[in-house]
């Protein structure tokens, strides 16, 4: 893996060996609420004693971080000082919120230093759901939509280009939709699973390596943007890819792991150098003294900042499916899809299924929200009895809106309303877009015309597709 920050050799690359999710043994009370939300039973330990994480099983979804309420109390100072703990956790020293036992490796401190370097061309992308949750960190109501303030804040943090993962979601639909059509036509490697949730991918690699050919070969939208930042956008801006610092703001702790995967590089350059969470972005904004609430709305930069409504809804469970059907329907039938809002796909149950008539084909689809629900589907696929063509899997309970890096709630009683408001906000944002289908996004059309050629073409394969690896315990030990 190539290090792209010459001044700090080795530090910018997020190593795979960092388990990313940690439990601070000084703070853990052994209540095991984290274990009760872990979808893969990766948290072990006796009740009443500090817990441990089995890094092999852990899918780094961060749900334990969201659930943990064991904090460092003022009245019982922990062994290490607060400043030392913040440093160990990779957080900027100005963070004032309480420290909890379960936490993820932070990259705010590292990013703060990198942003001060004038020699680097600093590029950032934001996941669809950051704009519906970031404002909560500044005391605004659940689901407040702030794409413009977010872009403005990122510019004030010293980023040279503010791009959008939503654009990558649109590219994903072009590639994944074409891949699905090809597989359905040939009848090969069905069902096809989505591959944009890194926690799901890690889980599949760990527990079902024999089924990996059923995953779409598409990289996630984040990695697609990363690849395009160091090729297409570098070309447009006339910047040497080696000088680019590629940063992603994600609702997800596992994105830190994904960015560090060895195969996620293009021509020797790591596609995404640093990933920070929604919470870490808020901490950096506060650290710089930016008055987020009163910021003006600013646009994203071109070319990787123009997105469709289909790209936006990736953040909610069923969103990838809905976006894919909007485009897949039109690519297959060459007719306009009669209804853009596919309500039958929306919802919050663990498994939802639907059948969609596309021309002569009855496309059978399933949406899985929460990894604990996927095992029955995997069994069906292994037995050859799975009836679906296309299956979306999101590791978190309601998709990325409930990701492990999202704002952490103080009261469990508000969780449901928070997720619902974030989701409604995403759908509202989609409904207000002029362009709501990925293949009609003018910036996507231009990308394929000027740079990629066609979906699944040579350039696409080189930049946007990948292979997955077995992580079965047997192979890891050898």
């Amino acid at each position, binding site marked *: 893996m190539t290090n792209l920050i010459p001044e700090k050799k080795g530090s910018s690359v997020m190593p795979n060996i960092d388990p990313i999710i940690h439990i601070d043994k000084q703070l853990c*009370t052994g209540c095991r*609420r984290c274990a009760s939300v872990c979808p893969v039973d990766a948290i072990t330990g006796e009740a009443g004693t500090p817990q441990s994480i089995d890094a092999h099983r852990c899918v780094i979804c961060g749900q334990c971080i969201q659930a943990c309420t064991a904090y460092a109390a003022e009245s019982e100072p922990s062994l290490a000082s607060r400043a030392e703990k913040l440093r160990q956790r990779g957080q900027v020293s100005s963070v004032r919120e309480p420290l909890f036992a379960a936490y993820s490796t932070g990259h705010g401190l590292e990013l703060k230093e990198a942003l001060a370097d004038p020699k680097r061309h600093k590029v950032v992308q934001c996941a669809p759901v950051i704009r519906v949750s970031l404002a909560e960190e500044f005391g605004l109501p659940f689901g407040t939509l702030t794409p413009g303030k977010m872009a403005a804040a990122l510019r004030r943090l010293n980023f040279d280009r503010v791009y959008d993962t939503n654009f990558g979601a649109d590219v994903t639909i072009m590639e994944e939709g074409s891949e699905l059509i090809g597989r359905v036509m040939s009848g090969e490697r069905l069902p096809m699973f989505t591959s944009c949730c890194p926690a799901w991918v890690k889980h599949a690699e760990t527990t079902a390596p024999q089924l990996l050919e059923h995953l779409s070969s598409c990289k996630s939208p984040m990695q697609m943007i990363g690849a395009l930042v160091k090729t297409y956008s570098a070309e447009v801006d006339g910047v040497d890819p080696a000088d680019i610092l590629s940063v992603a703001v994600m609702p997800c702790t596992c994105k830190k792991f994904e960015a560090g995967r060895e195969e996620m590089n293009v021509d020797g350059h790591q596609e995404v150098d640093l990933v920070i969470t929604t919470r870490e972005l808020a901490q950096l904004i506060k650290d710089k003294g930016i008055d987020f609430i009163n910021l003006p709305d600013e646009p994203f930069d071109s070319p990787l900042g123009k997105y469709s409504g289909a790209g936006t809804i990736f953040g909610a469970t069923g969103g990838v499916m809905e976006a894919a059907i909007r485009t897949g329907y039109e690519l297959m039938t060459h007719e306009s899809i009669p209804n853009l809002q596919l309500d039958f796909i929306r919802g919050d149950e663990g498994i939802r299924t639907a059948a969609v008539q596309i021309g002569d084909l009855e496309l059978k689809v399933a949406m899985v929200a929460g990894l604990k629900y996927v095992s029955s589907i995997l069994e069906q696929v292994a037995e050859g009895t799975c009836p679906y063509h296309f299956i979306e899997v999101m590791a978190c309970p309601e998709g990325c809106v409930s990701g492990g890096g999202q704002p952490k709630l*103080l*009261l469990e009683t508000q969780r449901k309303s928070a997720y619902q*408001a974030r989701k409604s906000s995403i759908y509202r944002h989609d409904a207000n877009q002029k362009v709501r289908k990925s293949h009609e996004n003018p910036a996507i059309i231009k990308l394929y015309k000027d740079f990629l050629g066609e979906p699944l073409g040579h350039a696409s394969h080189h930049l946007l597709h990948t292979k997955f690896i077995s992580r079965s315990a047997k192979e890891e030990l050898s």
Partner: protein
Amino acid sequence: MKRERPNSFVIAEAGKCIGCKACELACFAVHNQDNGVAASVGTITMPVLPRLYVIRSDSFAMPVQCRHCENAPCAGVCPVQAIRQEEGAILIDEDRCIGCKACAMACPFGAVSLYKSYGNGQEIEQPYLKEQQNGRLERKTRIIAYKCDLCRNIASAANTVSEETVTSVAVDQSGRLTENGGGSLPACVSVCPEQALTLVSPILGESRSRTAADVGSLRSLRL
């Protein structure tokens, strides 16, 4: 004739408590909306100062908080009459409190704590009293007594108790902690994942010879 009703209080069952401290966090959250604390942890700019504390031993954990004593010893020793009985609860007037610690010493349960006072998320300094700090005289931070007030002075305490109530909050789509599902439970009781906490509202005479301190007496009290 006015019917006498003993003060309500919250008590925990040690057998159920898992020591997660969700009650402490909820207590702090609902009491500090004036300090900028909203729904997200990221809005906190001050130490977490709850009004109940989870105590632990090798064999059990349970939160301890004010029992709202009928003849409150804390009120008896307060030299400035900052502790009062109001509508079935023993409350501290934090503006009046001088931080003398008499109440903390008098409390048989250790339910009173003294901590810095905060306003708008910042420490409140005293107008006159100063102390030597960093080689110069600086105004000393105000210290006051904190204890459980049964969430009485909170417009509503995010006291959502049932799935239905949570849904009714969702309609409002608000991140504000003032949202209420219509319940009146203290925040600690409503968030406990193990239902280890109970709000007890006894009726005079029904506890007979047993004291309220006996957890077993919960069965004989009309809830």
